[in-house]
């Protein structure tokens, strides 16, 4: 046992202790063929243990904690404040665990170093380095510590696979896909280098592609500060080390670029430019010029791409890209030109195909499950051949599910039909390789008789899914088809007919059968969610569908009805995660419409969201609801951030999640990230006025007033009576110094809503425009009317700041902070309080509301 490979030892420990295992991590492990066969048998044993545990109570370890946290070799249930949930991977450095961080209320990855490695200090240093950089393509670090003599580092849990694993198991990348990956990595490296750091170990094993498609640069274990050139011991894999480092062990941003070039070479070829298994071997290969040119290995690749890769890993520093930005620019040009060259109906690349197979869905409403599985099956089958004509090609990258038609002749069945559309859209959204248009945009075509090509163009998608539901007496019939947008050709279709008696259960069973048939393309997370949903009681499912239908209206009375139905659903079936998650969202909507107070909604939504997540950790609506409460009510920035990220991870096409996260990132001062999220949300929901407002808000905080104005105008063109669109136009116009236009806009918003906040904004704009008398008058009205409530203090602060009364403004702002108005959370970036920003009092208030960076320090 003790002589066995540490990977095997870790697996055996996890099986014995009943901890979940990420088997994909063994793909990357250094194992002999014999060991791999042993791993196959260990999988059997794990299945057996799981089966027996399901049949009875979990045995637990029955060990006192002190016994199990003492050494790295021992299985453990805790490490410091973290609760260990399973093993993600092992290696010579130690073990990476999946763990629960109760402080963040989130799952994290915990890397615990093997003893006697002598690099404990480097890991602690890694934490402090990483804390200084924040970028969507760089893993977020949460903390590092010593515990019982061990050094551990916990960070964002990335669910996905390394590029190395992807190449090994699914084949090499095409030029375009590789370039897109590299674009993300150049941005990550630019951020690293911009912070005065180096990565020093860029390689395919250190880059992960998340299930949602995000590329993440991992493992800064070798990272050092870049003070000119760093003279530390060479770290990294010989194949990725730049030749100049072999002569003199110095790292520079250009040596990171060299490594990125080798990474690109590797993911398109599966091999390396030189053959070496040691530093001296690499040295010899470089000295003798034994470099295999990319063109010789992949003659089919576009010349421009080959030139970029060759230049990125050019042995001569003078010929190599000097900065990550230069490389990014070259890659971006290539991608754009490739897009033009190949057109929108681009065929899949060699490596695209297996990746498209990854995800397929079934659904709560078994009707939706059948349809989703059918569509996914179609995608699966048709993605296996890259030489098909566009009408049946693998190139489908985006689609919209149009509202299904109710052919029942009974308007009372509308909730059921809309439910099928809703659930199907949601489920398809979890297919990582597919962009699915959010329901809000798709629903705008309900009952609209337009050519599908026009609809597809408006939604900017490759294909449309449409269908109908007929509920007639004892039977229900669902038809569905996929139409290719460019050609109007029907790519796939099917129909399903069942008895209505016990419809959900019967169809759930069929969906499960289909799911089993397609098991190879289901992700583990999707499968878990589907099983969880299919197990729900039929009556609870019915109430869920009705509840979600009622929530669409956003009308307070119908929301109250929805709440009743959803509460009934979870009472009937407390294990119904989706119902809990929907209920959590319903509570937050009830707060927005004034039915619940913030405190009531926070308490109810938190409970419902936690109930959902305890049963389905990927219930994205629950993550968003919880994040909203943590952010706006509890002011717990780090925890909120973690939940927003998990929501997007679980459903990358959700404009709702991205919009909420954009608001949060604005407040945190991460304006670029906020704009990025808002724009991704807009892409997923192109006809939603609300998403355009999120983009406008992000632009406004960046003081890009003209663009903010244009975007708010787009929102108004979609919904002329949207009060917030008038508010944003007013704020943007005021920023541009166009006081009269701003006053007219805010007046319109006030007329629509009579919202005191709009009145206060009118006062502020008047003051900014120099109409101080009118501004004073409004300020007096606000105070005299007894509106000195939570929002009003902030409104007063804005007016007072615009009037130049800084001390009074600070006092009003302090009052708003004391009252815990959630609206103060944006003061870090709000241009309306710019004049107060440099005062110590303002800085003190910023500390009181906290922030993401502050919380991490």
């Amino acid at each position: 046992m003790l002589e066995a490979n540490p990977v095997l030892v870790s697996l055996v420990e996890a099986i014995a202790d009943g901890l979940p295992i990420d088997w994909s991590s063994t793909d990357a492990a250094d194992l002999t063929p014999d060991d791999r066969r042993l791993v196959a048998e260990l999988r059997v044993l794990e299945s057996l243990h799981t089966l027996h545990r399901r049949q009875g109570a979990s045995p637990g370890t029955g060990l006192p904690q002190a016994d199990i946290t003492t050494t790295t070799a021992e299985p453990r249930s805790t490490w410091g404040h973290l609760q260990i949930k399973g093993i993600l991977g092992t290696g010579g450095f130690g073990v990476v665990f999946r763990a629960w961080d109760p402080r963040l209320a989130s799952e994290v990855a915990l890397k615990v170093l093997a003893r006697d490695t002598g690099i404990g200090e480097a890991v602690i240093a890694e934490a402090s380095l990483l804390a200084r950089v924040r970028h969507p393509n760089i893993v977020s670090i949460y903390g590092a510590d010593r515990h019982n003599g061990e050094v551990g580092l916990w960070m964002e849990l990335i669910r996905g696979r390394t590029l190395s694993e992807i190449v090994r198991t699914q084949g090499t990348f095409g030029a375009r896909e590789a370039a897109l990956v590299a674009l993300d990595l150049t941005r990550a490296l630019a951020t690293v280098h911009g912070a005065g750091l180096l990565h020093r170990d860029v390689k395919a094993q250190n880059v992960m592609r998340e299930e949602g498609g995000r590329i993440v640069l991992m493992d800064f274990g070798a990272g050092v500060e870049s003070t000119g050139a760093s003279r530390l011991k060479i770290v990294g894999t010989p194949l990725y080390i730049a030749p100049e480092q072999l002569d003199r062990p110095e790292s520079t941003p250009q040596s990171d670029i060299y490594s990125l070039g080798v990474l690109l070479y590797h993911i398109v070829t599966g091999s390396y430019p030189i053959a070496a298994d040691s530093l001296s071997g690499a040295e010899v290969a470089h000295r003798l010029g034994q470099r295999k040119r990319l063109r010789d290995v992949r003659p089919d690749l576009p010349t421009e791409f080959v030139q970029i890769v060759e230049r990125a890993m050019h042995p001569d520093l003078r010929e190599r890209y000097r900065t990550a930005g230069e490389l990014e620019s070259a890659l971006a040009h290539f991608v754009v030109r490739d897009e033009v060259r190949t057109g929108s109906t681009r065929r899949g690349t060699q490596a695209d195909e297996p990746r498209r197979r990854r995800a397929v869905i079934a659904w709560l409403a078994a009707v939706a499950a059948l349809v989703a599985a059918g569509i996914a099956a179609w995608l699966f089958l048709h993605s296996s051949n890259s030489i098909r004509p566009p009408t049946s090609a693998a190139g489908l990258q985006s689609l919209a599910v149009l509202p299904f038609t109710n052919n029942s002749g009974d308007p009372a069945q509308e909730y059921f039909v809309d439910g099928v559309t809703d659930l199907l859209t949601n489920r398809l959204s979890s297919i990582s390789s597919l962009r699915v248009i959010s329901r809000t945009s798709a629903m705008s075509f309900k009952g609209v008789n337009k050519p599908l090509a026009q609809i597809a163009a408006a939604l900017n998608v490759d294909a449309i899914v449409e269908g109908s539901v007929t509920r007639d007496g004892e039977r229900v019939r669902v038809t569905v088809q996929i139409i290719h947008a460019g050609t109007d050709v029907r790519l796939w279709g099917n129909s399903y007919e069942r008895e209505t008696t016990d419809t959900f259960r019967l169809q759930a069973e069929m969906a499960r059968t289909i799911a089993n048939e397609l098991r190879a393309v289901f992700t583990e997370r999707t499968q878990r969610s589907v099983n969880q949903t299919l197990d729900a009681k039929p009556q609870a499912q019915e109430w869920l569908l009705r509840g979600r239908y009622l929530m669409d209206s956003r009308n307070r009375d119908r929301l109250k009805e929805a709440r009743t139905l959803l509460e009934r659903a979870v009472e009937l079936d407390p294990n119904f995660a989706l119902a809990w998650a929907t209920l959590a969202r319903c509570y937050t909507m009830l707060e927005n419409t004034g039915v619940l107070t913030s405190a009531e909604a926070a308490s109810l939504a938190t409970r419902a969201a936690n109930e959902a997540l305890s049963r389905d950790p990927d219930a994205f609506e629950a993550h968003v609801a919880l994040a909203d409460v943590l952010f706006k009510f509890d002011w717990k920035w780090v925890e909120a951030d973690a939940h927003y990220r998990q929501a997007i991870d679980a459903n990358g096409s959700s404009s709702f999640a991205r919009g909420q996260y954009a608001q949060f990132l604005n407040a945190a001062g991460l304006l670029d990230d906020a704009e990025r999220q808002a724009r991704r949300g807009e892409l997923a929901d192109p006809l939603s006025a609300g998403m355009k407002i999120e983009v406008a808000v992000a632009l406004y905080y960046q003081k890009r007033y003209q663009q903010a104005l244009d975007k708010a105008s787009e929102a108004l063109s979609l919904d002329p009576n949207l009060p917030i669109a008038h508010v944003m136009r007013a704020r943007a116009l005021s920023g541009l110094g166009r006081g009269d236009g701003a006053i007219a806009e805010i007046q319109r918003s006030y007329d629509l809503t009579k919202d005191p906040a709009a009145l206060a904004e009118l006062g502020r704009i008047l003051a900014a425009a120099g109409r101080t008398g009118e501004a004073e008058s409004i300020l007096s009205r606000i105070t005299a009317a007894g509106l000195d409530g939570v929002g009003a203090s902030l409104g007063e602060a804005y007016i007072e700041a615009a009037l130049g009364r800084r001390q009074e403004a600070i006092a009003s702002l302090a009052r708003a902070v004391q009252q815990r108005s959630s609206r103060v959370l944006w003061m870090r970036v709000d241009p309306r309080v710019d004049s107060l920003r440099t005062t110590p009092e303002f800085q003190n208030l910023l500390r009181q509301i906290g922030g993401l960076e502050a919380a991490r320090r």
Partner: protein
Amino acid sequence: MSGESSLELLARIRAGDGAARDELVARYLPRLRRWATGRLPAWARERDDTDDLVQDTVIRSLGKLEGFEPHHEAALQAYLRQAVLNRIRDLVRRAQRQPGIVPIDEDMTLEGESPLDEAIGAEARARYDAGLSALSAADQEAIIGRIEMGYDYGELAAALGKPSPAAARMAVRRALLRLAEEMRDARG
């Protein structure tokens, strides 16, 4: 629960103590039922009397302990499991003689139908059984106790006569690795 070891309870049962018998039955029954469920073919699982079958078997077996002297709890558990298995086989044989019931192979392996088979496939299940039987009795008990019957390490230490839960865990880990090696080698 008295806190007495199972062997102490067994001694009291031998002395005719009904309460001790009830306590021992209560201690073993849930896990034996679960274990039996994993071994039963689907048609038998659906019978209402399966739970009764296990309970009845345990009670009867505890009444027929003459000459049986277990040195540790694991031996007692193995004895009871064997009794339940024999009873299941009887049930299958009887079923085979009745028209309309699923026929079973002569060797009564119940292959292809139990939850274990459904979980890992009949072939892997056969490798598992063969691998298990190739292990020492101590290794077998460690695996069955932990994996099949869901003992925590404290309970397992008591059953296996190990000095501590950590020692029981080590025994399970070693046994699992040996079992996996047996299964791998059986695959050839």
